[in-house]
């Protein structure tokens, strides 16, 4: 500094510390690239050597598997080994709807039966205990309001 500059004396510049910032950014880069670089290498390998699928007409008499409807090989792999076929999800939803529909139907029928049995009184429900017929006393009373 003294030798190559022609002016100025050495300054001890007082700045805020950049140690923690630099350490944080270094650690961030390290942990991101730790899994990021293998993932990027894998994806470039798949894109170059395996290649995407080509669009074709469905051949006669051939029913494609559910994972053959995707273009990228990784999405095909995920659809084939990790996810359920969409037909299965559809059927599961339909089964749930069916159960719930039958439940609502039965509940409505129960309410209707209850209403009718209470109104008509000829069913097994709505029987109330009344006192025994033989306990009533029909003899003449002393005052008329007993």
């Amino acid at each position, binding site marked *: 500094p003294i030798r190559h500059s022609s002016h100025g004396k050495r300054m001890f510049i007082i700045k805020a510390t950049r140690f923690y910032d630099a350490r944080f950014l270094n650690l961030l880069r390290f942990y991101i690239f730790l899994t990021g670089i293998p993932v990027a290498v894998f994806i470039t390998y798949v894109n*170059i*050597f*395996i*290649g995407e*699928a*080509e*669009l*074709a*007409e*469905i051949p006669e008499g051939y029913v*494609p598997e559910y994972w*053959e*409807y*995707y*273009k990228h090989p990784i999405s*095909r792999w995920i659809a084939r080994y990790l996810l359920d076929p969409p037909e299965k999800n*559809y059927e599961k*939803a*339909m089964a749930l*709807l*069916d159960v*719930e*529909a039958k439940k609502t*139907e039965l509940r409505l029928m129960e309410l209707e039966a209850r209403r009718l049995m209470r109104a008509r009184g000829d069913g097994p429900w709505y029987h109330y205990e009344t006192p025994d017929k033989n306990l009533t006393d029909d003899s003449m009373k002393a005052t008329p309001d007993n």
Partner: protein
Amino acid sequence: VAEWIERQQAKNKFYYYHQKFRRVPDLSECMEGDYLCFFEAEAQWRRDRMVDQEIVAIVRERVGACQQREGPNQYQNCAKEMEQLVQVTKAYQDKYGDLGVHGNARTCLMKQKHRMMEERKAQANADE
């Protein structure tokens, strides 16, 4: 380099297809209370709406490409594509237009019913 990549990719070729769905009975052909039929009709309506959205996008892309190609004399040479875009967007707006985020097959059917009622009323007014 491109040919080397193509040669690597040509070793194991595989295909992907467009999924063809069977047509199921529409919402207007479902018995009331048949929730399974509602579900299938709803799914079919959503697929049809996505197809219509793609159609509108393709027509719009054609108009954009035409404008880019023709440059300064686009208003004269692209009249067909513009007319097609106007028709397609009008049809889309009529069918799926103001249903909103919660629009489903049932609201669309009600909108169609209202449209038919108004058409009938307009015709009755025109006949008088």
